[in-house]
Every structure is written in structure tokens, then in C-alpha cells.
């Protein structure tokens, strides 16, 4: 905690309705964020129990620099993933870090299961279990609206909540954070649902005087602020945002299309960052403490009634590269309005857009091959038919049909039930692929990353930067990058600001608030967190060398040409040797 020699952890048990606050000196060795969240998970996770057992914990942690330096805005959640059954980690911006820090907590550990639906209200030192019966079944927008009116503190509160998909235990349900952000991947929303926890409202009003640190802190803050706003270190996020990737990836032949049957989409231009910015962008928004504001929000106008009425159902829809890929190119949807309609639908239900798109893409192909029935789903899925996909998203969110419930488990598990595993493009135990088909570092990086996210080790970037690496060099780069990202995320630095927060800047920020960390200590921190993640994965029975990589990745040439399963196997062997040498 800022200015203290401990990490302040709030433990909440939803079964007993007991709370406990501990000031943990030992946790300062893990910095905060991902480090503390992983350590707390290691202490509380129950490998022998089901993912939805009430005893399973969910953790949210922030860091000592959270929101007091520009773009240090993230909160890190850890949990046992309902999607993969193993290590779950998800990051979100919004105001959750800001509100938690001002409420006086560095981490939150929630265990147990409420008897009836509730929401948790954290208002400084008051922790309240509020009835959420009336909220159960509401979509994420409506839940947010009601919770705002029940908890007035505009600007200074955080409201994170689940939609119907979380309540129905869809395995890739997300947690909506401040309407436009999410704990997106790996199913934290289903963990909330299993705990009968609809939402967490956090209001923090504590003050933290600068004290003796004032002069140095002001100086370093101004330097970082200048770097963020006046240099090109974060240029792309200022402008088109992450959707600027759509066109370059498409041109390179790295944009997964129609369930990765292709890596170029003929309608990419229509759903590109440029087209959305020109025609649909309404405004941009920021997480608390970030002067960039990369959250791009589009206006979606859907006509209703007779055409001559000119009546529109208008709404605001946030978009990013991954959403454009998953619900656009991956489903063959090339009209902006239809893409935005699907993003909104998944968002209201509270489902991770990437996993939703990947699952529907698999289902489309499975239906074409007669493995699953359009009659049972109530709609025929065809690539490009956005209205059919909207119907399917609603069916998954409601979970009333058996097929929809299987789709709610993700493409890999649905394929294990119905067949078609070769084209279920999930990696590392069920995590739907992200929007890149760049080459070996991407596929292998996804697979060996602790949470199987493209953000674990950014293999897609290694593929784009290098085309002459040996397999050993690729594996070493992936591991080194993941360790470095463990350090950055233990500080809760948004990875979009990774070029701003080079080592010297990180050290200067820490020193300016009285926390001198050396290069060696920061390196060691990253290695330690990485090792702990691998330990947890081991306890949960995960072995990357025994999990199959679907054939589809080898059928469709990547940006670097066709990939060979043999070579991927060789790289995984190298990885296993490297990990063995780490003595985890």
C-alpha cells in the first residue's frame, strides 16, 4: 500500500457474511496487482474441488502506484477459470482500481456463496451485503443503471456487475466494469454467478497526503505525463485505438476469418478502425487516471417501425480490435452496424466477445457439417448472417436449450460433445484464439502463456518483428516477455503504456513515492510471479505438452506461411526443458 510497509487485504466470506482485514507485510515482496493476486490465489485455491464450489476464491488486486501515475489503471483478477478449469487471470480498467485504492484496500478475496442473490457494497470501512433479488436477470446496462441510482457517488464509485450469462454460468461470462470495460476473459462472470454475487459497488473517499514526497513525486508525474501525452509512445491508442490493427493484419494475411478457414477477410475495410472512426465513432473515454482515453465508443442506430418514420433505437457500443475480429471477420460479418449489434448483444448478456465469436464460428461450421442441429438451436447459422448470430447469443445467455448450454461451455467442450475438435480454434485447454494468425510465436505463445491469452507474452508481436528466429530463440523470447509482463502487471501498468514505462521510468516512479526497487529486484519479481503461476497450473493438472493444438491452425497458412505441427511439438519440448530448468 502506498506509503505503508504492508498490503491491505479485505477478505469477504459470502456464506458466513464475515469480513476480515489483514495487513500483510509478506505480500510486499509480490509488489501488487498480478503478483499479489497470484500469491493470494495460490494460498486459497482448491484444486480438488469443482470450479463452481463455494470454497473457490476470486481475487482482485491493485498496486502501490495505482492511479497515482498516468495509465497505471488496471485491476487484476485471479480465479480458477470455469472455461479452462485451470489458472484464470483477467485485467480491467475503468474505475475499480481508483475506487479500491481510495477505499483503503490493495486486494479483495471473496469466498463462499450467498444464500440469495446479493451485491457487495464496499464503502471505505463499511462492507455491506445488499439484496440483489430484483437485479437478478437484468442485463449489464440495466443492472448498472439501477446500482448507480442506489449508490449515489458519481465520478468516485466503481460498479462491476454480471449479466444473465454470468448468472446462468456461461463458462466465458465476463464482468462488466463501468459499462465500457470488462474483466473479459476466462469466465470471472460465471464465478460471480456461482457465488450468487451480482455486483460489487466500491466507493472510496480516503485521502493520502503527499507529505515529504511532494517535490519528487510532482516532478516524476509531470515527466511521465509529458511522455504519455506529448510523445508518440502511445500514439496508436490516441488515434484509432486498437482497431488500427485490423487493416495491417488483414494485409499481412493474419486476420482470422470464418473460423480461421482464411486469414484475410474481403470486407475488412468496412469494419476497419478507420471506417468505424469515420462513420460511427461517438466519443472516446478513459479509465480513471489515464490521459489517453483509448476506449472507442460508437453510435449504433437501429431503425424500427416503418422506414418513413425515421425512428431509431440508438445506443452506444464500445469497440476494440479483438471484438471486431471475433464478432466480425471470424463470423464473416462485414457490415459495421451488424458488427456493432453483435458486440452490444454479447455485452448486454455479459459474455466475453472473443470466446463468443470463436464458439459461434465453430458452431457455424459444425452445423454446416451436420454435427449440430439448426432445429435444436432454433436458427440456422451461416457466416455473415448477423441476425442469426444475435439469436444464438441470446439463446446461450438464456441457457434454456441443451445445445445452447453446450455452446456456453466454449467451442472446445462443445466439440468434445458433438465432434469437430479439429476446427475448434481454442488453445491451452479451451481459451478461444485472439485476433491474430501471425505464426509460430502466436500459436505457441497462446498455448504456453499462463492464462493462454495473447497478452501473456505477445507472440503475435514477436512474429511480426522477427522472421529468422530459431525455435530456441522464440521460446526464450516468449518466456522473457511473459516474465517482464509479470513485473509490469504487478504494478498494474496498462500494457498499452509499456513503451512509456521502461525500466528507468518504473524505478523513478517507485522511488518518488519512497519505494526504491533495483533492476535486479524487479527482474526477480517477474521471475517469481511467473514461477508461481506455473506452480498453480501444475497443481491444477495442466501440462502444455499433452494438450492438443487443433488441426485448423496448421491448415490455414499464417502470415509467416503454413505452420507445421512437428515444429510446434519441437518448440513445446524446448519449452518443457526451459521450465524444468526453472525448478518451479
Amino acid at each position, binding site marked *: 500500500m*502506498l506509503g505503508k510497509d504492508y498490503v491491505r487485504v479485505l477478505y469477504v466470506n459470502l456464506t458466513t457474511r464475515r469480513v476480515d482485514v489483514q495487513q500483510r507485510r509478506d505480500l510486499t515482496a509480490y509488489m501488487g496487482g498480478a503478483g499479489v493476486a497470484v500469491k493470494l490465489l495460490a494460498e486459497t485455491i482448491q484444486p480438488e474441488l469443482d470450479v463452481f464450489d463455494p470454497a473457490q476464491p476470486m481475487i482482485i488486486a491493485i498496486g502501490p502506484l495505482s*492511479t*497515482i501515475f*498516468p495509465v497505471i489503471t488496471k485491476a487484476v483478477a485471479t480465479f480458477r477459470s470455469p472455461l479452462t478449469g485451470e489458472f484464470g487471470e483477467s485485467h480491467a480498467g475503468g474505475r475499480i482500481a*481508483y475506487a479500491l485504492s*481510495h477505499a483503503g484496500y490493495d486486494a479483495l478475496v471473496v469466498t463462499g456463496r450467498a444464500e440469495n442473490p446479493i451485491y457487495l457494497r464496499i464503502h471505505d470501512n463499511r462492507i455491506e451485503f445488499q439484496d440483489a433479488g430484483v437485479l437478478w436477470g437484468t442485463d449489464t*446496462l440495466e443492472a*448498472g*443503471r439501477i446500482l*448507480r441510482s442506489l449508490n449515489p457517488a*458519481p*465520478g*468516485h464509485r466503481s460498479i462491476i456487475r454480471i449479466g444473465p450469462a454470468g448468472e446462468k454460468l456461461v463458462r466465458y461470462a465476463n464482468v462488466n466494469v*463501468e*459499462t*465500457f470495460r470488462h474483466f473479459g476473459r476466462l469466465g470471472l462472470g460465471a464465478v460471480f454467478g456461482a457465488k450468487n454475487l451480482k455486483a460489487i459497488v466500491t466507493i472510496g*473517499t*480516503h*485521502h*493520502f*497526503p*503527499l*507529505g515529504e514526497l*511532494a517535490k519528487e*513525486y*510532482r516532478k516524476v*508525474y509531470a515527466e511521465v*505525463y509529458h511522455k504519455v*501525452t506529448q510523445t508518440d509512445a502511445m500514439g496508436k491508442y490516441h488515434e484509432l485505438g486498437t482497431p488500427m490493427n485490423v487493416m495491417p493484419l488483414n494485409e499481412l494475411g493474419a486476420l482470422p476469418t470464418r473460423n480461421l478457414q482464411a486469414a484475410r477477410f474481403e470486407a475488412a475495410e468496412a469494419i476497419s478502425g478507420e471506417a468505424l472512426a469515420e462513420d460511427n465513432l461517438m*466519443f*472516446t*473515454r*478513459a*479509465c*480513471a*487516471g*489515464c*490521459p*489517453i*482515453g483509448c*476506449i472507442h465508443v460508437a453510435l449504433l442506430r437501429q431503425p424500427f417501425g416503418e422506414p418513413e418514420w425515421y425512428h431509431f433505437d440508438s445506443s*452506444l457500443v464500445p469497440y476494440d480490435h479483438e471484438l471486431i475480429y471475433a464478432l466480425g471477420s471470424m463470423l464473416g460479418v462485414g457490415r459495421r452496424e451488424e458488427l456493432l449489434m453483435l458486440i452490444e448483444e454479447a455485452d448486454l448478456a455479459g459474455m466475453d466477445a472473443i470466446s463468443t465469436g470463436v464458439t459461434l464460428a465453430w458452431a457455424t461450421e459444425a452445423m454446416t457439417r451436420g454435427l449440430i442441429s439448426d432445429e435444436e438451436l432454433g436458427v440456422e447459422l451461416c457466416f455473415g448472417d448477423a441476425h442469426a448470430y444475435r439469436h444464438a447469443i441470446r439463446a446461450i445467455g438464456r441457457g434454456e436449450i441443451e445445445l445452447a448450454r453446450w455452446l456456453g461451455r466454449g467451442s472446445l467442450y462443445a466439440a468434445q460433445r458433438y465432434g469437430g475438435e479439429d476446427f475448434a480454434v481454442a488453445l491451452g485447454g479451451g481459451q478461444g484464439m485472439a485476433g491474430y494468425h501471425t505464426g509460430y510465436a502466436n500459436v505457441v505463445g497462446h498455448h504456453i502463456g499462463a492464462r493462454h491469452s495473447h497478452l501473456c507474452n505477445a507472440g503475435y508481436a514477436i512474429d511480426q518483428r522477427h522472421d529468422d528466429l530459431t525455435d530456441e530463440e522464440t521460446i526464450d523470447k516468449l518466456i522473457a516477455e511473459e516474465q517482464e509482463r509479470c513485473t509490469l502487471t504487478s504494478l498494474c501498468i496498462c500494457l498499452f503504456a509499456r513503451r512509456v514505462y521502461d525500466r528507468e521510468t518504473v524505478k523513478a516512479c517507485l522511488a518518488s513515492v519512497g519505494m526504491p526497487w533495483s533492476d535486479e529486484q524487479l527482474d526477480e519479481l517477474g521471475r517469481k510471479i511467473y514461477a508461481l503461476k506455473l506452480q498453480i497450473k501444475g497443481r491444477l493438472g495442466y501440462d502444455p505438452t499433452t494438450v492438443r493444438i487443433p488441426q485448423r491452425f496448421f491448415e490455414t497458412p499464417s502470415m509467416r506461411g503454413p505452420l507445421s505441427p512437428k515444429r510446434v511439438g519441437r518448440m513445446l519440448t524446448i519449452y518443457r526443458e526451459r521450465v524444468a530448468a526453472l525448478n518451479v
Partner: protein
Amino acid sequence: MPTVLTDPGMGRCIGCYSCMQACARMVYNDFSPHKSAIQIRTVGGMNGRLVANICRACPEPVPCVQACPTDALVTRDGGRGMRFYKNKCIGCGLCVKACPVHVIGWDGEAERPILCVFCGQCVKFCPHDCLEMVDVKGLSQRFDEHGHVG
């Protein structure tokens, strides 16, 4: 010529809170944007507009100055807004109640008001030029031209 804070560009605001952090950091010696004389708010959640609650530099008679029982608050040169003399403040809080737009905050620990000192730090740290310092004369002109303040 004294200058006052205005918010002509709030349509460009992204809600980053850099202005609040600047006021807290540079004026009120605190990490917390609660201790800031400018408060950014959402109207209707994140879907709605962002607005700035700032001192509007009232014309004479300035209500907070009128309410102040000591000489801690005096009307600024130019007749708009107030100047604050901290050592004369007795912590009565009457200025908070008197503010017609409810933008004077309260520091419960120090028992002092949190109010705008027209220093312009928030303007300096706004990435989108939402805020602007204008001289008192300019403020009057703006009022004339657009029929509303700021």
C-alpha cells in the same frame, strides 16, 4: 488582469481525471482527487456526458465572500471570484453552504474549504484542452456573446 477558470471544451472530455489529480497534487498536497476544487462528474453514467463542477467566479456580491465571517475570503480584483487567506479561516464551513453551484468542497481533516485558487494547474494537465483560463474581462465578454457563462 486576474484570470478565472472556464470549461468551454467539456464535450472533448474523456473522463481521465488528470485535472482533479493535478489540483490535489499541486494545490492540496494529496494523492486523492477528492481533494480537488475541480470535480469531473458523469451525468447518466459512462453513457452520458461528462461535466466539470468548477467555481464559476461569481460576480459581486460574491456569495461565499458574503458568507465568510472573517476576512478569509475577499473579492478578487476585477470583481469576479474570491481570494482565500488560509490563516484567517476559522473552519466554520459557511462558504460551503453559501456556494450557489455547490462546488466548494470540505476537507474534514484540516477543517478548511477546498476551493479554486485560479492557479491553472488543472488546465495545464488537461490532455484535450477542455479547460481554459480567461481574464475576467474575457469572461464577461463570453457571457455576452453566448448568453451563458463558460
